[in-house]
């Protein structure tokens, strides 16, 4: 098993390298460069050229690339031209918010998906099952941004149950209990929105697993032996069906990243997703480089973890 894990990790290294080169070249191709925005129109073009030369923007691309990678591995991602801050500080300030949002989303997703999926499979064709099927269909078909808009409109503005933007209300003392409560309140609406649509695949999978296993022979044997139905479901069916969910983690992370870009824009939530969009609009490509690299790495690590978990959990894969 360790061999497969090692092979998997080794495979990841060329992927990371190709990813970083690709991103670097893409960002380089973007029109405009850091000095375009700072230029005084009356400035002599020669001065701008010397500035460019000094910043190393005229060097061949591979030199610039290695310089960037070298700095990046030491944690120096350069300077953001939007905020006049080091990129690393900028990202570090925002990434906490996005991670908090992602955690809330994931927790709510599984809190809803696991019981709904399992129970819908167990009580097949009941009104509960039918309701879950309809809900599943909607969560699969409705695009995230429309749902988020409607949620914001209904619960944020019309009903005024939740705050509509930001992470925390101004004026609260940092570290106090009301501060944390308020932070949590700001997380609920975006987190709930993302979670309600994220349950689609999991519910569908769990429900079909339970239905398949329910009809198998060993269940009939157990029931004829006199084992109470509850025990059959809890011991055998639910546990076996739930384990492969851990393997979905990699794709969860991809979905969360893509979703966060949309959700953070709609809810004006200052996280990494919003930073990404702002930096693209402003052509702040040191931020873009750093963000895509970090997010790409996060996805890679996520898929790696899910592969490892899958190989631990499923003995059939282990033997290979």
């Amino acid at each position, binding site marked *: 098993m360790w061999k497969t894990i090692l092979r998997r990790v080794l495979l990841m290294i060329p992927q990371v390298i190709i990813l970083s080169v690709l991103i670097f070249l893409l960002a380089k191709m973007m*029109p405009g460069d850091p000095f375009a925005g700072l230029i005084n129109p009356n400035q002599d073009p020669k001065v701008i050229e010397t500035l460019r030369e000094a910043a190393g923007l005229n060097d061949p691309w591979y030199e610039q690339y290695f310089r960037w990678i070298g700095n990046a591995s030491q944690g120096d991602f350069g300077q953001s031209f939007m905020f006049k801050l080091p990129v690393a500080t900028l990202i570090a300030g925002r990434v906490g918010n996005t991670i908090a949002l992602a955690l809330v989303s994931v927790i709510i997703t599984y809190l809803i998906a696991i019981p709904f999926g399992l129970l819908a499979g167990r009580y097949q064709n009941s009104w509960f099952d039918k309701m879950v099927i309809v809900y599943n*269909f909607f969560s699969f078909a409705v695009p995230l941004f429309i749902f988020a*808009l409607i949620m914001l*409109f209904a619960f944020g503005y019309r009903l005024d149950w939740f705050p509509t933007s930001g992470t925390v209300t101004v004026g609260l003392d940092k570290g106090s209990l009301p501060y944390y409560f308020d932070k949590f309140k700001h997380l609920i609406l975006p987190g709930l929105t993302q979670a309600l649509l994220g349950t689609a695949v999991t519910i569908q999978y769990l429900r079909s697993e339970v239905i398949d296993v329910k009809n198998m022979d060993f269940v009939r044997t157990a029931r004829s032996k006199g084992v109470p139905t509850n025990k059959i479901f809890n011991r055998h069916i639910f546990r076996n069906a739930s384990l492969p969910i851990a393997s979905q983690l990699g794709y969860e992370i991809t979905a969360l990243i893509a979703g966060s870009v*949309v959700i953070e824009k709609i809810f004006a939530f200052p996280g990494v997703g919003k930073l990404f969009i702002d930096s693209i609009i402003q052509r702040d490509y040191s931020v873009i480089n750093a963000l*895509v690299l970090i997010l*790409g790495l996060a996805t890679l690590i996520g*898929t790696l973890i899910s592969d490892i978990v899958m190989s631990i959990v499923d003995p059939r894969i282990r033997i290979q």
Partner: protein
Amino acid sequence: MTEKTKDTITLQESIPPMGFRMIAREFVKEKMAIFSLVVLAIILLSVFIGSFFIDQSQVMHVSILDKYAEPGTVTVDGNQFLLGADEGGRDIFGQLIIGARNSILIGFAITIITSVIGVGLGIISGYYGGLIDNIIMRIVDFIMILPIMLIIIVFVSVIREYNIWAFIWIMSAFYWVAKARLFRSKTLSEARRDYVSASKTMGSSDFKIMFREIMPNLSSLIITNLTINFAANIGIETTLTFLGFGLPQSVPSLGTLIGYASSGDVLVNRQWVWLPASILILVLMLSINYVGQALKRSADARQRLG
């Protein structure tokens, strides 16, 4: 025991496992499926016929005096705003029709292109196995791991002459991978079957086996996948345009209409700008998905209702 004479026994002709009649039967069994199909047909017809009669340049003509006109008011020129106007005084109804047509066409184009590439490469990869399979799967794995939406956004900002076709090609370049994976695994199981070995023994060319024999057996999966993919692609295109990275601002689109809702003022006070577009996308995607579900059920015998 009931008596049956030769005259009263009527044998029902069995429905073939594939084919149009069976699909039609699957639809009839569930009323929502027929309803969705009808709704979809109505939307498609009205959008395409309507866009013939609406002049795009007139719709996108900025008229500040009509800024945020409410539905039903009359413009400066004397025409009536059926659904009001947006910030630039542009007719919402016209934008809705043309925007819907654009989104549908783009979604359709992306679906077709990704299907051709995905199914083609998937079948080739599954049939040949070995080195070809390895190479294609490595590429697929690499692309699947990328944060695709982020990279598309970066690509969109990079291209200098940016138009609808650039957008379509960028999206197609990334979204074929899931299909390739799916059809490769299906082809792998099909390629083991006896009819493939028989054809090989007979000397049929590989190309013929792949696309004249294996592919028709996957056709129900292809059609179902196509339909559900169509809905997803419309969703992705609208999301990207909403964020500002899809169609350029001068082209009417459902995404830009909804994008105006980013400002709290428009969201709360001027719903006529974004609500019709949102409802239209919702109805469109739900009905396409419903039709796709019915097709999926007709393909999988275990789930059939009829």
